[in-house]
């Protein structure tokens, strides 16, 4: 179905953190493929490993205490996880760019916005000062910051939250990357500003044919943005499907439970929210069996004994579950 080239191919990533209390099993075998110009969303609640997965790919996990135990991340045929820091520095910010959740901590408070946006231009594209200044103004216009010639000399604290996020986007887009990784970029923003940022990103990615990985916990944002969705839980992918498939025909009990726990703005209230009992698992314990078993309403013996693999359940739709929710019984 997807005729476009694979641009990023992540295979079986495992990332752990070694801390005083023990080892945190943050990512436990995550694979995903991203095609050119495609937008995928990685969805999950806090602690599921969605951010750590992409930070690992970008080489932004501090080692120690982090450790990338195994895995390969092929970008245009080269394994990012096998590269040296020097090699990664040529790719990070140029071909793969990242936007973070809290622009106030991601931006340097003592440098002007203009200086920060021009950094990738000078470092990666060797631009001279005058050319870089001009490009910065263009970029600020592109992301919708009014009066860019003056605002580029402002400091981050002089920008509002929405504007800071736009500035971060400008920085990420500076070298026209092939892949944009957005880690919860609108979570800290008001809903009307979130709508502006989402509209901006969709417009730019369509114009630039940029692949986007959007990390979020918000199933509403995903519905409007992504072509494919990956649902994560306890460091594992538990379901992946096209966006229409995922919402129409979810197959993993966690996805089902998550959708049932959401209040709807477009409908009259018809029942109580279905909450998921218990809490996400403690990642300090080596995972064994299905991580969702303690909270799953369809759990049976095999779930606790054996971690299910990602099984195909429909066309381009996989779920990590021993139970067939459609027919109401375990798979053979």
């Amino acid at each position, binding site marked *: 179905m997807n005729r476009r080239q694979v641009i990023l191919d992540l295979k079986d990533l495992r990332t752990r953190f070694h801390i005083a209390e023990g080892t945190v099993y943050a990512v436990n075998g995550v694979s995903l493929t991203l095609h050119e110009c495609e937008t995928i969303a990685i969805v999950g609640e806090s602690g599921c490993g969605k951010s750590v997965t992409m930070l690992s790919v970008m080489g932004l996990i501090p080692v120690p205490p982090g450790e990338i135990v195994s895995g390969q991340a092929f970008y245009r045929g080269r394994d990012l996880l096998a590269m040296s820091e020097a090699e990664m520095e040529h790719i990070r910010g140029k071909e793969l760019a990242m936007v973070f959740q809290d622009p106030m901590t991601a931006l340097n408070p003592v440098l002007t916005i203009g200086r920060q946006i021009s950094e990738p231009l000078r470092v990666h594209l060797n631009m001279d000062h005058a050319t870089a200044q001009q490009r910065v103004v263009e970029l600020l216009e592109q992301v919708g910051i009014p009066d860019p010639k003056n605002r580029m000399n402002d400091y981050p604290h002089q920008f509002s939250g929405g504007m800071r996020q736009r500035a971060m986007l400008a920085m990420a887009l500076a070298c026209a990357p092939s892949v944009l990784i957005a880690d919860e970029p609108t979570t800290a923003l008001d809903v009307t500003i979130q*709508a502006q940022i989402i509209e901006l990103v969709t417009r730019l990615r369509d114009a630039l044919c940029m692949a986007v990985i959007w990390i979020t916990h918000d199933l*509403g944002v995903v519905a409007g943005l992504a072509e494919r969705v990956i649902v994560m839980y306890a460091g594992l992918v538990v379901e992946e499907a096209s966006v229409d498939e995922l919402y129409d025909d979810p197959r993993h009990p966690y996805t089902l439970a998550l959708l049932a*726990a959401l209040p709807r703005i477009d409908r009259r209230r018809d029942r109580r929210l279905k909450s998921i009992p218990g809490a996400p698992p403690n990642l300090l314990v080596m995972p064994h069996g299905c991580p969702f078993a303690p909270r799953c309403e369809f759990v049976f013996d095999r779930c606790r004994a054996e971690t299910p693999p990602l099984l195909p359940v429909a066309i381009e739709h996989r779920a990590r579950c021993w139970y067939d929710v459609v027919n109401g019984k375990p798979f053979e």
Partner: protein
Amino acid sequence: MQTSQPLVKVRDLRKHFPVRRGLIIERQIGSVKAVDGITFDIAKGETLGLVGESGCGKTTAGRTILGLYPATSGQALIDGIDVHHSNREAIKMLRRKAQMIFQDPYASLNPRWTVAGIIGEPLRVHNILPDPQARAERVKELMLRVGLSPQLINRFPHEFSGGQRQRIGVARALASNPSFIVCDEPISALDVSIQAQVVNLLEDLQDEFGLTYLFIAHDLSMVRHICDRVAVMYLGVIVELAERDELYEHPLHPYTQALLSAVPIPDPKKDRSRQRIILAGDVPSPLNPPPGCRFHPRCPIAMDQCSRIQPEWREVAPGHWVACHAV
């Protein structure tokens, strides 16, 4: 629906924070008009939602209504007691009847106190249960009621998850047997699956104890789920107030319309076919609210008079109030 006096009455309430400048002599150069004239009632047993984006004044409104801040002007009455103009005895009684659940489950609990101390504080301070033994029993009851194991009574906040801490906050709010609780964004810091747990708990408690809630939030989907009526705030004033389904199905104020259209719907087909109203610019500062209608600089249908004359707060349909020249 309402045959008796409302439990909570707010009349043209204002809260301004002075802004001072100067080294040797401090002068007031202006004020942040965080809440600039809000009026509404809350009936007994009702849940009124107060929504708006950051800086709209909803948290300040909640705190001022409870008397945590003195009011600059206007009135708030809870069960007949004037929150800002009563004697000490009346205020002490008020503190038992009206409680608050806070947004940040990490900041709202004293990290040096055990759960016993935190939940027991209202029981101690209001002399409801001076005997420590009896108090501990009551704390355990409350813990059970909010879904916490009573065995954890001597643990400290850092030993609990965010959702559990929020439950501790709920138990603390219930301890004095209040009739009115201001819930200030009680679930925004929690994961989706935990939000549902806490919301269901709040609803059960409301049914069991006949509680009245002011539910302050920015999550419009959750507000539609839990509230009976909803008020929309913008830059210190309420721009629209209506019964829940009426507001979501027939929003009249352009800001309400934009706000509702900006909320993502977890349904790809529906989300794709929506008409989104994208507002230009950012929310202006409450230090210098725009003249006339505060929303006019960002309003897609602003007319000439909007920049000069503040729109009147009118009931345009039964129970449906709006402040807008175009309505």
